[in-house]
């Protein structure tokens, strides 16, 4: 009974956090399977059911449920209501708070109260309550998701949160993105700070499978990304004619940010698969931009509605793990012709490796279909690298020969694709050399030697016989 309790405990701990190692879900399912045999099946089922209900955010159900929205001004709640309503209609519980509300708390008793955080408070210098930069970053580091919208005159607080995630907003506080080439044509001929951007990242995972036809309206500050940083992605970049400067003053020095290196909206997927969206414009999410018609300067196409709504909705689906979340389960390997998993392989064994990969569709796990999932048989460097074949039902499979090298190998699946959560599976397996009796007893090339030794023995016998008995 005591052992059972510890097992349950393992279940709880593994489910409460979004794990980056994929071994945990396997373990969970296995422990559950074992427990099913026992009498306490009902209890455990109940407990795990309760768990999944209360702890909505889990490995089994990765979509966020409870989201804290911090606003500068409660007016934003109505001015951005289309965005919020779309979230609520998809089943999210939004908790609106003013950013300087002293009762803000992300966690209570060590448990996070929210699965996601939306910061629509670009001017806030200090959050209320216990929230600060470190708390927000810890939130992200524990696998939770984040949407940050900055704006012209974004506060240091917002800038430092972004910088910690690898997004560098223009340091000049008065600079905004100006584009005299692809600004949005509007009634009032302004200073070209309202941009119609249509340079999207080409990714169905991030922006959905339907193409965003209309340009996205953007008004705000730009940011740059470190090209060496593999975790951040430009989702919406500025056109080559854009630059970042103060529109009111005359440009005396070349702008620090210019051209398509300016990113307008970026996403971050941390190593623990926590996701974040950084936008230089708060208005991007507003009802006004959602509804306004758009015409890009120099283009005759006029759209009745901007692409903002589609863009933001699709992006929010991605950031809250409704799309692009993979899981790998049932890693199996065995010798060809056997079914049990051996503790050790021998060199030159033929083996089969299989893994099941599923993608979260927002409500259920669907088989993930791709033709580029590879398995490595790895010891300091991959000895075997093979693309796995799939049965289109989520099962990936490869069979290969163990190399003629002994050592401690690993089955590795390192699957990192744009927009998808990264899968990195590693399973250690030793490979031993032949046993002493697994070699061939006689090898044809050595027959001269066998002949030599046996003829010598025979000759010696005859010699002894003759020598001893010839007289």
């Amino acid at each position, binding site marked *: 009974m005591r052992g059972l309790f510890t097992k349950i405990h393992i279940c709880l701990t593994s489910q409460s956090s979004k794990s980056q190692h994929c071994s945990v879900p396997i373990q969970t399912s296995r422990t559950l399977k074992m427990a099913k045999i026992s009498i306490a099946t009902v209890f455990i089922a109940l407990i795990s059911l309760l768990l999944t209900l209360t702890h909505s955010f889990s490995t089994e159900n990765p979509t966020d449920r409870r989201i804290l929205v911090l606003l500068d001004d409660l007016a934003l709640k109505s001015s951005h209501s289309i965005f919020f309503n779309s979230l609520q209609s998809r089943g999210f519980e939004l908790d609106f708070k003013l950013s300087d509300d002293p009762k803000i708390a992300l966690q209570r008793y060590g448990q996070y109260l929210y699965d996601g955080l939306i910061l629509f408070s670009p001017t806030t210098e200090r959050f209320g309550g216990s929230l*600060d*930069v*470190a708390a927000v*970053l810890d939130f*992200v*580091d524990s696998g939770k998701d984040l949407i940050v919208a900055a704006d012209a005159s974004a506060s*240091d*607080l917002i*800038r*430092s949160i*972004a*910088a*910690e*995630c*690898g*997004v*560098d*907003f223009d*340091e000049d506080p008065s600079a905004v993105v100006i584009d005299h080439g692809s600004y949005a044509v509007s009634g009032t001929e302004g200073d070209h700070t309202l941009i119609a951007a249509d340079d999207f990242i080409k990714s169905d995972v991030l922006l959905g499978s339907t193409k965003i036809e209309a340009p996205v309206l953007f008004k705000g500050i730009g940011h740059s*990304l*470190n090209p060496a*940083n*593999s*975790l*951040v992605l430009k989702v919406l970049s500025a056109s080559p004619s854009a630059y970042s400067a103060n529109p009111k003053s005359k440009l005396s020095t070349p702008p620090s940010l210019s051209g398509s290196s300016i990113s307008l909206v970026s996403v*971050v997927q*941390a*190593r*623990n698969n*926590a996701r974040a969206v950084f936008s230089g414009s708060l208005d991007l999410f507003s009802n006004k931009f959602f509804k306004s018609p758009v015409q890009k300067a120099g283009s005759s196409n006029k759209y009745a509605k901007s692409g903002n709504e589609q863009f933001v909705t699709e992006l929010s689906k991605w950031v809250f793990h409704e799309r692009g979340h993979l899981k790998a389960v049932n890693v199996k390997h065995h010798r060809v012709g056997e079914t049990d998993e051996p503790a*050790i392989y021998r060199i030159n064994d033929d083996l089969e490796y299989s893994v099941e990969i599923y993608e979260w569709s927002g409500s259920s796990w669907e088989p993930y279909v791709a033709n580029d999932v590879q398995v490595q048989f790895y*010891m*300091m460097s991959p000895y075997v690298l093979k693309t796995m074949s799939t049965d289109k039902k989520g099962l990936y499979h490869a069979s290969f020969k163990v190399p003629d090298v*002994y*050592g*401690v*190998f*690993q089955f590795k699946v390192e699957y990192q694709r744009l927009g998808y959560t990264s899968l990195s599976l590693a399973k*250690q397996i*030793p490979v*031993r*050399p032949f*046993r*002493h009796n697994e070699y061939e007893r006689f090898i044809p090339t050595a027959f001269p030697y066998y002949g030599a030794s046996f003829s010598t023995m025979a000759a010696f016998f005859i010699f002894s016989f003759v020598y001893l008995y010839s007289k």
Partner: protein
Amino acid sequence: MAASTDTTAAAPSSTLRHASGNILAFFILLLIGVLAFSIRLFSVIKYESVIHEFDPYFNYRVTQFLTKSGVYDFWNWFDDRTWYPLGRVIGGTVYPGLTLTAGTMWKVLQMLNIPLSVETVCVFTAPVFSAFAAWATYLLTKEVKGVGAGLTAAVLLAMVPSYISRSVAGSYDNEAVAIFALIFTFYLYIKTLNTGSLFYATLNSMAYFYMVCSWGGYTFIINLIPMHVLLCIVTGRYSPRLYIAYAPLVVLGTLMAALVPVVGFNAVMTSEHFASFLVFIIIHVVALAYYIKGILSPKMFKVAVTLVVSVGLVVCCAVVAVLIAVVASSPTKGWSGRSLSLLDPTYASKYIPIIASVSEHQPPTWPSYFMDINILAFLVPAGIIACFSPLSDASSFVILYIVMSAYFSGVMVRLMLVFAPAACIMSGIALSEAFDVFTRSIKFYAFQAVDTVSVSTVSPQNNVVETDKKEDVLKERPSRKNKKKEKETVEKPLKKSEKEKRPLILPVEASAIALFLTVLLGAFYVVHSVWAAAEAYSAPSIVLTSHTRDGLHVFDDFREAYAWLSHNTHVDDKVASWWDYGYQTTAMANRTVIVDNNTWNNTHIATVGTAMSSPEKAAWEIFNSLDVKYVLVVFGGLVGYSSDDINKFLWMVRIGGGVFPHIKEPDYLRDGQYRIDSQATPTMLNSLMYKLSYFRFVETDGGKGYDRVRGTEIGKKHFKLTHFEEVFTTHHWMVRIYKLKPQRNRIRGKTKKSRSKMSSTKTRTITKKNPWH
């Protein structure tokens, strides 16, 4: 001593005295065995019954595996817990003699219903075998110089400090059984040489097989015996006995040696074994020459000689040329690094730092000779002289043995162990001869005093005749065919020299004083040996003690750290440390290690050395690529434990730099000096080893950071670790364990908002748990 006088002076009522002498000798031998065993128990009494040092832990682990899984699984054991990720084929890379011996002892004890644990058997294997070694020494010396010398040599060997240092209870290493095997093989060789019996020759090759199973030092045997054979041939001492002693050993011995997996084809492929084959050919040529000489007339023989010599020379030249070509084609000339460093003492320090870095491969200092063999150093020359009068096949062998082993011990301190038995044999002979002379002269005068009849002329001659007879008996057994010839060739000069030499009679006073002084000398030796056994060589080195004014301090940090590892880390976690601690970590903590004391892969060790000498980030990357979770360093700066990792650090730099040239030794030295104080180089102060050793060290003595081993204040006192975090430090800070931090979850942007960042890092350091407070 009583026995020696006993046997030599046994003249008239010989059978009875012989019998009593034999019984006496038997009991003396029994007591020697008890002495050899019990003098090695100090470590158990003073500390506990525990395996010592480093290598014994591996042997212990292997023995455990053997007793659990049986011989075949042991033979095929692929160990995936060492040398990660390469693994190690234990069965094929280990000398199985010790393990099989202890395993068999354990099995036998189990069958007798004596339930001893494997560890206990392992702890007491060495003392038991040192008793065997003492008896083997008796047998060997008896073959050379008679029972008296044998007993003396056995006593000396039972407590020679050099041998004690490797065979105290708990020192469960190959040498423990190998020294016995070495002496016993030599005994059987001499026995065969003296008797010419094929039975002993076969036993000899089996003893050689046991030696090959036990220790890599078997190459000493397979080179020494051919050298002796060659010596005998060159000095005209060739006899069929010599042939019988040698030829079966080479054939059977090589065949059996090739059966040991770790030796395998090396038995015929490496240069270490070439000498034996060369001499094998030579002895056949010589045997043929003697045979032809026997059947041909002298004139014909001369013709034959010129013919054979001219043809033989051509053949020899061809063979030698082929040999040289084969040997020269290999970069190390076919020799293993360790053997090469024996031939050229500077070889290792020049080319192979990994061999030079091992303390037991260093050349010994002069004091260590006095420490390890004490008075034997003075007695050895006397013994050599005694061996020359008369020079027999056997005594020429022990002379060769001592000369060779004296050279080797001068090259490598570890080989002092091979030298010690030779020194004991020589000293035994010397002491026994001395006692012989002194007691004889005292007896002579005593007889003279009692009986004024001219005994003086009779007694010594009697003596001579008696010894001659004995030798005749001894030598008369060889195969009947060659008896006559052999007597002519070997015995005649012997006899002549014996007869010419009058026995030495000293004045009674002088001999009495000399006798007293000799006994005193022996007493000193006993006192020194017991002191060495009790104080110098019984520390298990995993538990350290120190005496201060406040009393005894025990430092049990190693076991504390290993216990922490075994209780607090996952069973498959990899622990990186310098290779010294590899065996202990696998045996005591049961965790996978990257490198260990079986230094078979230089590159792998160099990788760890490079990581230790690199800055934190580079080191983290190296360790991460090896899946390392924890890094263990040994640090003695707080308590003054001098053999810590900082003192070994230059070896890590050298070995690492040997493979990865971006690590350069001069970068770590300031003006050629190795220092860790404020004068140290930045490379040194930023190396991982420095950081892991001295992290938070200033907190121990209020900001000074005084290193008690190096005797200075450390150079860089306050620093943070970026890629590692401290997880455990033992009570006396001797072992420190760090964990690799996981990769950053996010990659920070380039913007430096100093104010906000400062605040964030500050809160982090405060919230981080410190396990030491």
